[in-house]
Each structure stands twice: as C-alpha cells, then as structure tokens.
C-alpha cells in the first residue's frame, strides 16, 4: 500500500515540478498584461508620452546584447585558447567562486572600485591626477551603460564557461581538436570550425537565459546603470513603487514592452546565429588554417579574464575593507585605522536580515532538492526520459524576464492576502532556484552506474533500500553542491523578494541594494560580506562533508 502511494507521488513529481515553474510565470504574465490593457490601453499611451522611452529601450537592448555577445565571445576564446592546457585548470577553479557571488554584491564591489571616489581613483590620486577630492565624473552610472556592461560580463562569463564545460565532453572535442590540429589548423580556427557548432547547440538555452537576464536585470542596473533615464526595467520598478494607480498602469505597460523587447532580441540573436553558421561553413570551405589567430586570442582571453576576475575580486576586497574601516578619507589608498565597531553596532539589524535571508533560502533550496530528487527518481523508476520540451520548460523562469511576470504575480499575491510572508517569498524564490538545482544535480545523478542497482536488486534489495542506502549516500556530494547552488541563487534574488515580499521581507540583497544609493559604504560592505559568506559557507560544506565521509573511499573522491 505504502509503496503504491509512494510510486504515485513519484509519478506526479515531474508534473508538480514543471507546474511550479510554468504556473507562476503564466499567471504572472497574465496579471501584468491585464492592468496594461485596461482603460483602452491608457498605460501604453502614457508610456509612449514618456520622454525617456527611446533611451531606456536603447539602453536595455544595448547593455543586454553587448554584454551577452562579449561574454559569449570570451567564453569561446578562453575554451579555444586554453582547453586541455595546464592554465585551464587554474581558470576552471575560479569559476565556482565567481559564480557564487550574488549579482548585487558583485555590482556593489565594482561600483566601489570604479566610482570617482572609489579605490582606483584613490590609488592614483593625488600623485597622477592631482585630485584632492573626488572628481565630478560620471564613471559609475555612465550614460552609455558601460560600467553596467562590465558588471554583467563579470557575472555572465563564469556562468557561460561553466555551462560550456559541462557540455564540452559531449561534443567529441577530445577527438575533433587533435584531428583539426593534425590537419594544420590553429587552435582557435580548429576549435571554432570543428567543435563550436556542436557546443553551441548545447549552449543555446543558457545563452538565451543570459541575454534575457542581461536586458532586464534590476539590481545590477540600479547600482551600476545609468540614471535619468535608467534602463527600462529599473524604470518599471520605480513606477511600481509610486502610489498612484496611473503609474502602476504605466509600469505594467512598460513591463509588457520589456517582454516584447526580449522576444525581439532573442529573434535577432537567432537570426545572427544562422548568419554566423553560414559564415562558419564558408570559412571552413576555404581551408585557411588561421594559425596567426592563436597568439592574439590567447592574450586577449587571458587579459579579459584577469580584468573581470580581478575587478570583481578587488571590488569585493574593497567592500570587506570598508566594513572594518575607521577613518578613510578620499585620496588615501587605505583606511587610517581598522575597527569592528560598525559590525557590532549594526549586529541586531544584520542578524534579523540574515535570519530572514537564511529561512527563505533554506526553505526554497530544500524544497527544490526534494522535488528534483523526486523527479530524477521517477525518471529511473518509470523509465521516463525528459524530452527537449520539458528541458525548455525548465528554462522558462530563466528565459521570461522577472520584470515581465513578477509585477503580475505581486498583484495576485496581494489580492489573495499572501504578499509579504516568508513562505510566499520562499515559494517565489523556488521558481528560480529549482531550474538551477535541477541542472546542477541531473548530470551526476544520471551518470550513476546502474549496475549497482541491478547488483543490489539481485541480492533482494528493494527499490527504496537501493535509493536510501546506495544511490542517495553516493550522491551526497552532488546533492550538497546542488544545495549550495540553490542557496546562492536564493540569496542573490532581488526582484522576487522586493515585489512578493512587499517590503515586509527584507533579505541581505534587498537591503544592500536599498543602501547602495545612500553611500554608507561601511554598512553596504557589511551586507555584501554576509551575502558572500552564505554561498561560500554552503560551497565549503559541499566540499568538506564528502571529503570527510569518503576519506577512506578512494573511488568516491572527486564525485561532487
């Protein structure tokens, strides 16, 4: 009886999981569209009259397409120049830490680094510049969105690299690259002509997700992006925070427009893919070996990596320093003294914010892990194999911009009285945590040696015994890693917390972004450090626990 119930629940798991991602997105989109269309589309009319519209649209397209293209080209350059070389292992080790930095923390770090009163200005002042006080320059929040683009690349490059590394072994690169090399092709040409097409086929969805995110990010654009006008997404949030109903209708109309922009950009990208594929085939036909590309590309890739990783690292180090800085006046490169006073003073507030962040994050992550494992179990028990459509649905919350469906979801949450509770916020986070947890865990889970299950079954072990005693313990490392990924995603969420939390749920990220305009760098630093500490701790646990469990199990090491 109990087994029958369990199997039925298992069979439901994939449906439930996909539903948890599809329903909020669909309901939210409907909820956004409705106010935009009412009163004969008054919202759209008012939006059309807004003088900043053209510029906000251009910024959204420009920063989104620019940062995505840059990130993708750098990903290809790094893989082509370094795959299989010793330096690659060192680059590879940078990915996870860079990836686990929440977007807002990364943006705050960069902001401190490049601001007129920031660290770079301090290091070269007054010796090189003669500045005795911060210059009146728009480096940060520059009108072209260059600092926003840099920030986006710093966060997207590690993500695309990781996705590419996961896909690379399935492309047959280890055979194709030597073949190209023995035919006399340079590394770059060989990679692009023989391996990239197969790789890109698997990288397509992540690239689309990156493009949709980059065009519509709110937290990074609030910290690094232009103002007056800001990007369209930021303007949506500004309108939503105004009390009047009219401005809410404009916000809804702008959110719809933003969604249409993303679809248009994706279509444009798709067209460019086709052109690039034709160019590639034509180039391959001419048989030029292009060995001259190798050296400049390698230099470029290494420089770009150093700049992005270095600026992120330096920015975060600066924030850490700020959180313990005593007196730190402008041209000084370092603070005059160090103190823990700000930490002690703000401890009660920080502790409250930290606990809300952790409750929401752990709840969403735990739910995502249970659902993901149930889905994967159903897969093997009922011999289900998710098709490409199910996979696309998994990416749905990553492809449909948050700014397009969260406003509608907020309206629904407010009407049903569910707005502003920790549980609702955790549920909203789950929509975004689930895809990442699933993508992180499904590879190692499916790679498990099925003969172990057969061997155990011939010894009389039941399905549940095989699961609890063999598969789950052997998957301890991957499960903990997926959990750490989920927690990092949840900690980084800004818009869901802001909109669904309705101001009553405050996490480290919403607080840090709210503080960013104020200029209290010590408090910003403290929040950013805690934002970093949670994923770092989670990834630390994901490394330490398997190492401890398997210290006497040689074959288990390296399964993470």
């Amino acid at each position, binding site marked *: 009886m109990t087994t029958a119930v369990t199997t039925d629940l298992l069979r439901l798991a994939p449906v439930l999981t996909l539903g948890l991602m599809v329903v909020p997105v669909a309901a939210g989109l409907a909820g956004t569209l409705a106010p935009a269309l009412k009163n004969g589309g008054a919202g759209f009319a008012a939006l059309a009259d807004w003088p900043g519209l053209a510029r906000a649209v251009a910024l959204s397209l420009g920063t989104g397409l620019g940062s995505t293209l840059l990130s993708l080209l750098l990903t290809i350059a790094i893989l082509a120049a370094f795959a299989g070389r010793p330096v690659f292992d060192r680059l590879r080790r940078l990915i996870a830490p860079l990836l686990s930095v929440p977007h807002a923390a990364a943006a705050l770090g960069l902001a401190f680094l490049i601001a007129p009163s920031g660290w770079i200005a301090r290091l070269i002042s007054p010796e090189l510049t003669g500045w005795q006080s911060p210059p009146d320059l728009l480096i940060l929040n520059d009108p072209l969105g260059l600092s926003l683009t840099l920030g986006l690349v710093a966060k997207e490059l590690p993500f695309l690299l990781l996705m590419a590394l996961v896909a690379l072994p399935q492309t047959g690169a280890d055979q194709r690259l030597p073949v190209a090399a023995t035919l006399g092709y340079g590394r770059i040409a060989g990679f692009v002509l023989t391996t990239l097409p197969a790789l890109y086929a698997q990288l397509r969805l992540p690239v689309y997700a990156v493009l949709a995110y980059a065009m519509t990010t709110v937290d990074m654009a609030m910290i690094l992006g232009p103002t007056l006008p800001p990007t369209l997404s930021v303007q949506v949030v500004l309108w939503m925070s105004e009390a009047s109903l009219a401005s809410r209708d404009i916000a809804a109309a702008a959110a719809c427009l933003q969604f249409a922009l993303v679809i248009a950009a994706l279509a444009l990208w798709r067209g460019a893919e086709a052109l690039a594929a034709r160019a590639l085939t034509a180039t391959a036909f001419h048989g030029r070996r292009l060995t001259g590309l190798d050296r400049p590309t390698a230099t470029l890739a290494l420089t770009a990596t150093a700049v992005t990783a270095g600026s992120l690292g330096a920015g975060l180090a600066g924030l850490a320093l700020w959180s313990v800085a005593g007196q730190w006046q402008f041209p000084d490169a370092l603070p005059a003294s160090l103190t823990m006073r700000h930490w002690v003073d703000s401890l009660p507030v920080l502790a409250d914010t930290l606990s809300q962040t952790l409750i929401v994050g752990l709840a969403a992550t735990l739910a995502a892990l249970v659902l993901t494992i149930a889905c994967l179990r159903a897969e093997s028990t009922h011999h289900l194999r998710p098709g490409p459509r199910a996979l696309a649905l998994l990416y749905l919350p990553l492809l449909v911009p948050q700014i397009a469906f969260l406003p509608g979801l907020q309206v629904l949450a407010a009407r049903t009285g569910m707005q502003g509770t920790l549980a609702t916020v955790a549920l909203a986070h789950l929509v975004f945590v689930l895809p990442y947890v699933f993508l992180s865990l499904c590879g190692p889970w499916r790679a498990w040696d099925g003969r172990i299950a057969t061997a*155990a*079954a*011939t*010894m009389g072990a039941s399905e549940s015994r095989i699961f609890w005693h*063999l598969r789950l313990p052997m998957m301890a490392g991957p499960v903990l890693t997926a959990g750490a990924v989920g927690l990092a995603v949840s900690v980084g969420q800004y818009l869901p917390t802001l909109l669904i939390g309705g101001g009553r749920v405050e996490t480290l990220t919403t607080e840090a972004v709210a503080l960013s305009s104020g200029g209290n760098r010590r408090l910003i630093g403290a929040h950013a450090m805690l934002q970093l500490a949670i994923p770092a701790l989670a990834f630390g646990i994901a490394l330490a626990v398997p190492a401890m469990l398997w210290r006497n199990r040689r074959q288990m090491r390296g399964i993470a």
Partner: protein
Amino acid sequence: MTGPLDLQSLCIDLGPRRLVDLTLTIRAGEIVTIMGPSGAGKSTLLGALTGTLPAGFALSGRVRLDGTDITDLPTRSRGLGLLFQDAVLFPHLSVGGNLGFALPARIRGRAERQARIDAALASAGLAGFAPRDPATLSGGQRARAALLRTLLAEPRALLLDEPFARLDADLRAQIRRFTFDRARQAGLPVLLVTHDPEDAEAAGGPVLSPLGENLRPAAKGAARHRDRAAD
C-alpha cells in the same frame, strides 16, 4: 541444494530480429555456458532473467526456478545472484559493508552478522579485509569479494556475466576455479555467459549459442573462429 533453473521456450526479439531462443534445464551444481560474440544477445538474455530488460525487447516463454515461475517477478524477488565483468562493489561502503548489504536481514545482531561476514572473508583468503576500502583491493581480491557478496545473499541460482574477462591471464584461471568451486559447493544451478572458449571448457557443462545451437563437442574450433571474427 536447490532445484533447477528452467528456461522454457525463452525467446527475445528486437524488432524483426530474434536474439535469444532457448529451452534448457540447469540442474543444481551444473554449469551451462552460453557463448557467442558480443552483440549476439548474451546480455539481453541476462537482462531477461534478472528482469532488467530495456524497453523495446519482446519477451516470450517462461523462466522457472525451483518450480516457481519467476518470469514476471521483480528483480529482488527472483533469487538469482549475478556477477558482472567488473566487481561492481559499492564504492561508498567498506568491504564488510558490501557483504553486510547482501546478508539477509533475518540474521540479526551486530555480532552475529559481523561473524558471518568475517567467516566468509576468511574462507576466501580475505581475513581482516572487512574495514578496507574496496578501491584498495587488487583485481583478484575484488573478484572474490564480489562473489562472496553474491553468495551471502543466498541466491538459488547464479548468473555469471563474463566475470573473468577483465582479469589478467594468470589470475583468470585461478578466479575461475574459485568461482566454479564455490558455486558447486553451494549446490547452485549456474548460467555462464562468455565469449571466451576457455571459460566454456573450464565450466565443463553444455555449451550453447543464444539461439540454442549446441556448440559442443565441435565447440572449440568453431567458437574460436567466431571469436576472432568478432574482434
């Protein structure tokens, strides 16, 4: 001693192609060898016997063990022990933990279970190996531990899926003798699947192709020839 393993008109088809067609009885203590090149339906046969046949294969006929029809039973209820080409020891458990996993739950008490495990290990020249990490065992030790694990689960018949193929030549004969001796001692019907004529010869029993052709006594030459062709 247990009853015989009966394959009654056991046929497996993949689309229009017949892979397996067998009617045979394996008595307790007897070893029947199914021999053929790879891709000839040997592993399909084992999948059908253990109940792990992938979707797409059509199965007809019956399998009886000791008089019970096991054709449609779940793998865990069939009472068939299985040895793979690799030992497939559970890498997260110790050697003793692997054996404990197989030991039936009705043997109760930590001390009693540990004693059974230790005795089994000692009987195979592996005394004191219980706390060891399976990954630190040599190929021969791993093969013996895998056989012990299979036998501790008290199967009523034994299936061998080319269990000697991965072993070095000198070790192969030794482990083969060890495995066959233990199976005969336990009085089990044994079905051996292999592409190696030496295995078939050492097993000493009937030798058949997956389609039921008798490969003995002319087995040696013919089988060798096929083997080469498969390579």
